[in-house]
């Protein structure tokens, strides 16, 4: 029984792991299993289950419409109903929010795995992104008909939606990598993620439009999610809003920086995870 002898693997202090990315591909099934596990566990022994995917955005839409549309009387521009604006903004925000908090806490919540088995640690935040994506898909499927019923006619712009989805995920990944790696070493970073999300809901134009706020536009554009939300609205609402090229470009640039630096820091500290966690 002759099998080709695999090339010997050398383990040494400080040795750059050339196999890392190949390993990551090899462990893709584990990524799927971890995401599947989290999703399955969420719906086991749950009575609300899928209904929660409906209730949460519905309630949030109502609240935000009330606060920003009715109380603050923010301009709605060419869109038929203020709630449409809010709903279209809520979708990317939900995606980012669950992806970011999932990725940020992924290492700590899988600490028992990290200290006992080998796998490229990048698998855990990526699995969290997978879970967020599935949740988002469910929410999208429920929300699209609602949007159409309220008057948002589907146009060719919908085809560009996946690009904005990817952008939101990348931002979440970049920020999530930073937070998760930092949390392993300094436990107080655990509380920064929910705090950022609380602030983010107001600093991101979820409940309002930026294009009709000339004073604040520049400042809000620094938030990478502004461009993403603008893109979502543009593709979902069939022309009621404009797409600002600069905003989108800024978002993508910041997303790239976040992912690049996040990956660097994560990989740099990865080898100590099992020792410190």
């Amino acid at each position: 029984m002759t099998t080709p002898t695999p090339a010997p693997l050398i383990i040494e202090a400080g040795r750059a792991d050339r196999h890392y990315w190949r390993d990551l591909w090899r462990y893709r099934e584990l990524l799927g299993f971890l995401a599947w596990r989290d999703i399955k566990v969420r719906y086991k022994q749950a009575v609300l289950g899928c209904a929660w995917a409906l209730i949460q955005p519905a309630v949030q839409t109502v609240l935000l419409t009330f606060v920003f549309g009715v109380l603050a009387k923010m301009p709605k521009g060419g869109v038929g109903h203020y709630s449409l604006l809010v709903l279209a903004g809520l979708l990317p925000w939900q995606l980012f929010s669950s992806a970011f908090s999932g990725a940020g806490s992924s290492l700590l919540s899988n600490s028992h795995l990290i200290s006992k088995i080998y796998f490229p640690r990048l698998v855990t935040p990526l699995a969290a992104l997978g879970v967020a994506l599935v949740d988002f898909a469910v929410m999208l499927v429920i929300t699209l008909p609602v949007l159409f019923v309220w008057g948002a006619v589907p146009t060719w712009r919908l085809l560009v939606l996946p690009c904005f989805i990817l952008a939101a995920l990348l931002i979440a990944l970049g920020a999530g990598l930073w937070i998760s790696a930092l949390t392993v070493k300094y436990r107080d970073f655990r509380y920064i993620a929910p705090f950022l999300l609380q602030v983010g809901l107001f600093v991101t134009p979820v409940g309002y439009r930026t294009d009709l706020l000339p004073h604040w536009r520049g400042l809000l554009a620094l938030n990478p999610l502004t461009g993403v939300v603008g893109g979502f609205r543009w593709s979902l609402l069939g022309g009621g809003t404009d797409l600002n090229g600069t905003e989108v470009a800024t978002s993508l640039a910041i997303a790239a920086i976040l992912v690049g630096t996040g990956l660097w820091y994560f990989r740099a500290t990865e080898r100590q995870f099992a020792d410190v966690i």
Partner: protein
Amino acid sequence: MPDTVIRVEGLGKKYRLGVIRHSTLRDRLAHALAAPRRWGRRRAGGDPGDFWALRDVSFEVGRGEVLGIIGRNGAGKSTLLKVLSRITEPTTGRVTLTGRLASLLEVGTGFHPELSGRENIFLNGAILGMSRAEIRRKFDEIVAFAEVEQFLDTPVKHYSSGMYVRLAFAVAAHLEPEILVVDEVLAVGDAAFQQKCLGKIREVSTHDGRTVLLVSHNMDSIIRLCRKAMLLAHGRIEVIGAPLDAVSRYARVHGRQAAAVDCRAAVRPAWAERSLVLERVEHAGAGAAPWAVPFGGDLAIACELAASRTVRGWSMFLAFFSASGVEVAAIHSPIQPPATAGSRPQLRCRLADFRLTPGSYVINIGVRAGPQMTDLVAAAATIEVLPTEHSAELQTAILSGFYVPNAEFAPAGPGPDRPLT
């Protein structure tokens, strides 16, 4: 010459002891501000705050070999396995591995209590490195090995601990790596389960020619399964070679008593009459290993007494107590000829085919004259029964049987007054 599958050279792993463990950013900043010079400065040669879990470890393992790793808790065994499994990085040295390595450091890693047995098999298999196709292929075998057919679809949180452990091991047992690393997982489970695990490990190494590294506290499994064993102490290799050598060295490390024990200063109970007292007890013919006897070997104990007045109809008894305080054996000598005042009678006891379960035993020695107890020395000596191939075959560690030794008493006669060493 089997080709080398694992080569370890000069391996060392250092941990920084958390004297001041900066687990929050606030602490780290506060500490840095308080002592700005310390921030960034590296101390050469290691701090006193450094702990070397492994130091200068070098060894080789050939294809198809089963290497046993033993040592006290904290000796560095788990750290070594973690380095080999790439969970943690070494500080010095290098490891060269040829072939896929799968490690079983804990039973049921990644099991989620809410998921069913079937789901957990897939999850655990994926975590251990099997592909979904592989798991599907071996699914039936795994279920048969674990004997959980009826309970496959119930959530694992409802399983008994025995079923849980069987299922977890069943998945791991069907891994097909070239190198398998097992850490003390055999310590859980009942006797039947441990049997199954040992059988599977033996099958994996002899039939499939896989290399196995086994860390265990069960000396019997080390002796039976391993062709080579390594004793780790304080992060260094103390012995590497035949399993019996490593195991007996491990057993001998604690309790270095001299062959002759002076009992004169020992505390006696108040009710002991003290007309005939035990002064000295010696492990006769001990050679290099005082107070250590292999399972099934011969034990000779020589006792020297001193009589302060004439004592008639006296006899001695020895009682053996296990480490948990259970009296496991007691032997009585026949009645001896009277001892005159001032004499120093000696009695030699020979216990042939000494088959107490390997472990540590404490010996209480007493002297009685008629109905009266003239002396009792509690814990006069501690004896270590060493495991052998025979005891391993009998699986004494699991079965825990006690066997009253055969005893032969012979008076050694009043000899010249030898100084007590």
